[in-house]
């Protein structure tokens, strides 16, 4: 619902845990217990041809607790007698004895990732650096055949994930651009930045609120403090606070996350400092309501209607509440400026607020508002990033059209 960052990191381990339980169940229970009848006595089936060329090797790009097994399909799988139903993967640390069932895959599959847990206490513990042997069984309805024992293989961890090399390379390149252009900016190079409608509107809107003697409402959205949209919004909040401190316009910042509460307080305080009015900063101008999406929105909506805020600024990470806020602000007669990095919510902000910073414009605004050369350097880097994307895209589309798949594959991520 909200707080995507934290939730993701909370849910992921749980999911992985559950998933390992699932795998564990798959590996240790016999096929019969799993409800897959192994040998229901229906017909006297012919014994299928055995799978061939079983080869085991360490699974790449992992933490060293998995082996990948490949084999050649049985001659009766999809051809011949066509009676192969499934393959069973059996493993032992001794080539002659002690094989246990590790997994089961449907016919037509010729590889299996035998992954285990990394903790010794785990029942499904898969030791690293220990040799294992594999046998593959081809099952038909009522009968089976076995491959020969594979050569030994052991699992070990890798230092670098080769499937993520494209991410590593592009991230490094872009980091280089950012550092380069920030240094450029430090040396005093003039950088042009085109006008962005929503940004100029912020200044006007603050002026309007001052004339009307009514407060400005600043909403940081539902993102956690670790989300990029929230960070961009904090910078904008800092600039807005500086302006409101200069004009002595009240600023209301209700937030939906306790960590965001602290960083927003700091950003506002810093704004008042920069304006030379630290004494005018009131800690309660930034306050926490609740972290639950719709309860938060109901309170903010009530606030808008009662305080008749002159200007509402929505910047950051927004979900379904975007339109609830924007429509209520409209009823209250406020000027509204919005910006979000949530693609699905941009349409509602575009429709219901006066100015919208679309996607990347939100980040540009955070750099642009201060006109600090250091921050502007990053905008230049972003533009170079776009040029690179466009060149890659043109190359990629041409390569795909002429079936030069190796170029397209440069951009592929294999997880």
């Amino acid at each position: 619902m909200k707080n995507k960052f934290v939730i993701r990191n909370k849910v992921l381990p749980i999911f992985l845990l559950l998933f390992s339980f699932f795998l564990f169940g798959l590996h240790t229970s016999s096929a019969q217990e799993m409800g897959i009848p192994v040998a229901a006595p229906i017909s006297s089936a012919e014994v299928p041809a055995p799978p061939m060329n079983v080869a085991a090797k360490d699974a790449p790009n992992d933490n060293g607790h998995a082996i990948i097994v490949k084999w050649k399909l049985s001659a009766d799988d999809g051809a011949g007698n066509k009676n192969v139903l499934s393959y069973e993967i059996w493993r032992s640390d001794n080539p002659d004895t002690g094989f246990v069932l590790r997994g089961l895959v449907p016919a037509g599959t010729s590889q299996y990732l035998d992954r285990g847990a990394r903790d010794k206490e785990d029942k499904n513990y898969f030791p690293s650096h220990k040799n294992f042997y594999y046998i593959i069984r081809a099952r038909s309805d009522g009968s089976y055949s076995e491959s020969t024992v594979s050569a030994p293989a052991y699992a070990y961890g890798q230092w670098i994930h080769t499937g993520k090399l494209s991410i590593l390379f592009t991230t490094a390149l872009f980091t280089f651009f950012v550092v380069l252009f920030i240094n450029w900016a430090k040396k005093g190079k003039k950088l042009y930045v085109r006008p962005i409608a929503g940004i100029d509107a912020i200044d006007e809107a603050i002026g309007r609120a001052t004339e009307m003697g009514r407060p400005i409402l600043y909403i940081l959205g539902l993102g956690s403090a670790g989300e990029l949209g929230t960070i961009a919004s904090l910078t904008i909040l800092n600039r807005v606070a500086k302006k409101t401190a200069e004009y002595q316009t009240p600023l209301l910042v209700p937030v939906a996350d306790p960590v965001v509460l602290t960083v927003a307080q700091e950003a506002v305080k810093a704004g008042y400092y920069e304006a030379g009015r630290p004494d005018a900063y009131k800690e309660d101008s930034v306050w926490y309501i609740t972290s639950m999406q719709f309860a938060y929105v109901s309170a903010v909506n009530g606030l808008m209607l009662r305080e008749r805020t002159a200007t509402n600024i929505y910047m950051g990470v927004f979900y379904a509440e975007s339109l609830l806020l924007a429509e209520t602000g409209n009823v209250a007669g406020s000027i509204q400026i919005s910006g979000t990095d949530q693609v699905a919510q941009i349409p509602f902000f575009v429709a219901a607020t006066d100015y919208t910073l679309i996607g990347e414009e939100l980040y540009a605004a955070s750099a642009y508002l201060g006109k600090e050369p250091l921050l502007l350097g990053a905008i230049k880097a972003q533009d170079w990033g776009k040029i690179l994307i466009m060149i890659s895209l043109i190359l990629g589309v041409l390569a795909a059209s002429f079936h030069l798949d190796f170029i397209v594959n440069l951009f592929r991520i294999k997880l």
Partner: protein
Amino acid sequence: MGTGEIIWNGLALFMTLCIFSILYRDNPFYRIAEHLVVGVSAGYFAIILYYTSFIPKVWVPVVHEHKFYYLVPTLLGVLMWARFSRKWSWVSRYPIAAYMGIGMGVAIPVTMQTLILVPLHATMQPMGFTSMALFNNLLVAGGVLCALVYFFFSKEHTGAFGGVAKVGIWTLMVGFGAGFGLTVMGRVSLLIERFTFIRDYLQNVLGL
């Protein structure tokens, strides 16, 4: 429905009507629901956080499992409370710095992957003029290019460049219109659900 259920569901119905009353204007009923739900939800969230995060991440590792390296983040957490004091409030920068550093570090490669490389790779499709599918691939790639031009900040949008940027903003607007139009159905479904709840309650309790 039993008596208990009638009362509880009656409360739910009352809350529903309180919220809907905002459509007319701000009024005491809406304020009741609004203020009540703020308290209830904040309390709920705090308690859930206590049971799902504090207990398994702080209490159990430190007290039961004796993983004392969990005292480091716990100490950082406690430092957040330095904010209660004006003098020591700067100490809370330490936990915030750790929070930000970790958060940003995790975000950088993941953002590069999911927001840039995945859509970029997905757009690299064969194009051509011989079939509708191939032509559409070309249009998608072209649309992406034009929209990216719109996002250029360090060059004025004039001349041919401005023309391309204009096509870009048209593409974006088509996307926004589609997003808006698609959403209406889901929102109406939610309203149907609420109305059905009201109707069922009235039918069950009042025999309407």
